[in-house]
């Protein structure tokens, strides 16, 4: 009996609707299972009634959704935008690099010459530290073939500070000539002051070379200068009363007399 009741409960939970003959006979004999069956029927009827109740139609319009939706960005458009931005970035980088290279080549400075000045012997030896010797830079701006020969082309020349014999070999690499490093003499007291305050001062000063501008000569045509004669003061001749030599008389005509 109990075994049949258990099977009947399992059958009830299997969602079967048709009551087989076996269970009809069992329900006539078992009051507990009959009660369960009535409860199940009541439940099924109730669910069926509720299920059959009409559900109102949704009045939701597409406009209510569409107005609140963000603007769709299709994946293909996103890919195209990404590709374009990438291409533009690459072009800009290449152009910038090219411009940088171009400007570097155009403004490449002439070789700089570094040499050490001689320390005057009159100075006390303790004022000069052997490892902090100053280095001065002299820029040789003249072209190699124009030494001592005036030419019509604009020549740029800066006088050398020392004779050419004492010149050390010129710095020819661009890294050497682009940035000149100058050292300052600094007293030991100043350095110690800086260190004691926790400030680390760099003893170097970088001097960047500006691009050289061509110098246009003011006088493109050769100028004829008037001859200048240096002579004695005129009062000397006046006092002596002697006539001036003829050779000098002609020159005096077009000459500027300078007297000191």
């Amino acid at each position, binding site marked *: 009996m109990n075994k049949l009741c258990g099977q009947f409960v399992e059958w009830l*939970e299997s969602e079967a609707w048709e009551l087989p003959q076996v269970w009809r006979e069992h329900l006539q004999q078992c009051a507990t299972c009959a*009660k369960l069956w*009535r*409860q199940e029927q*009541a*439940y099924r*009827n*109730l*669910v069926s*009634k*509720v*299920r059959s*109740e009409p*559900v*109102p*139609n*949704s*009045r*939701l319009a*597409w406009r*209510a*959704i*569409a107005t*609140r*939706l*963000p603007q*769709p*960005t*299709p*994946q*293909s*458009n996103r890919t195209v935008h990404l590709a374009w931005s990438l291409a533009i970035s690459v072009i800009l980088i290449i152009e910038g690099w090219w411009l940088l290279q171009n400007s570097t080549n155009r403004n490449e400075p002439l070789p700089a010459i570094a040499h050490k000045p001689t320390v005057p012997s009159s100075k006390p030896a303790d004022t000069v530290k052997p490892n902090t010797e100053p280095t001065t830079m002299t820029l040789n701006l003249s072209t190699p073939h124009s030494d001592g020969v005036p030419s019509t082309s604009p020549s740029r020349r800066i006088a050398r500070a020392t004779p050419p014999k004492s010149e050390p070999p010129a710095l020819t690499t661009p890294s050497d000539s682009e940035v000149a490093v100058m050292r300052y003499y600094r007293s030991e007291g100043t350095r110690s002051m800086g260190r004691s305050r926790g400030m680390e001062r760099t003893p170097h000063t970088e001097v960047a070379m500006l691009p050289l501008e061509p110098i246009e000569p003011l006088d493109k045509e050769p100028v004829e200068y008037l001859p200048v004669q240096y002579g004695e003061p005129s009062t000397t001749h006046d006092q002596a009363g002697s006539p001036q030599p003829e050779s000098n008389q002609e020159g005096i005509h077009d000459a500027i007399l300078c007297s000191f």
Partner: protein
Amino acid sequence: MDDFVSGLANPTLTDEQLVARAKEGDTDALEMLFLRYRQPVFRLVYRSVQSVDDAEDIVQDVFLKAFERLHTFREQCQFSTWLMRIALNLCTDRARTQKRHAELLQREATHKLAWMTHPNPPEPEEVFQQDAFHEAFYTALNRLPEHHRQLIIMRDLEEMEYETIAEILHTSVGGVKLRVMRARRAFKALLEPLLRELGEIE
């Protein structure tokens, strides 16, 4: 003729095709999906919240959320299942946040308004009996835990297949059958005294 126009004319355009077009930014495909699933989603939500206005709000949120996150939808399940899952989650959120007495008041007002605006109102005795059964059913239903309630709605009211429920709930069919059985037991236990009051059972 545009390809999509022909697709609109042809109702056999599948959900997968519409979703693919919607992912490409086709607003018409979104609208088509909305029109296709508006009422099924509304039915499920309405069964859960028993209020037209609340159901409309939730359905709107369901579609907004679904369309905003459409790019995250992978074709591992059906679009309809994914949509129902979102709807159930939003119903769960609402059930957690809203107090029960407020729901009852809302439902009562909705029923009264529906009865007053009914074009052919039934007889008062019939209305009373129907209303009493309806009230008893939803009273017991609202006392159920949320996971039981959703199963009763999906299986007994909406008559969803076990496979569909399993897909929505990310579980197996056997697991769903077991859960439905437990939910029914709990529901019958809550419903029995109410039905006894109504004289439906001894």
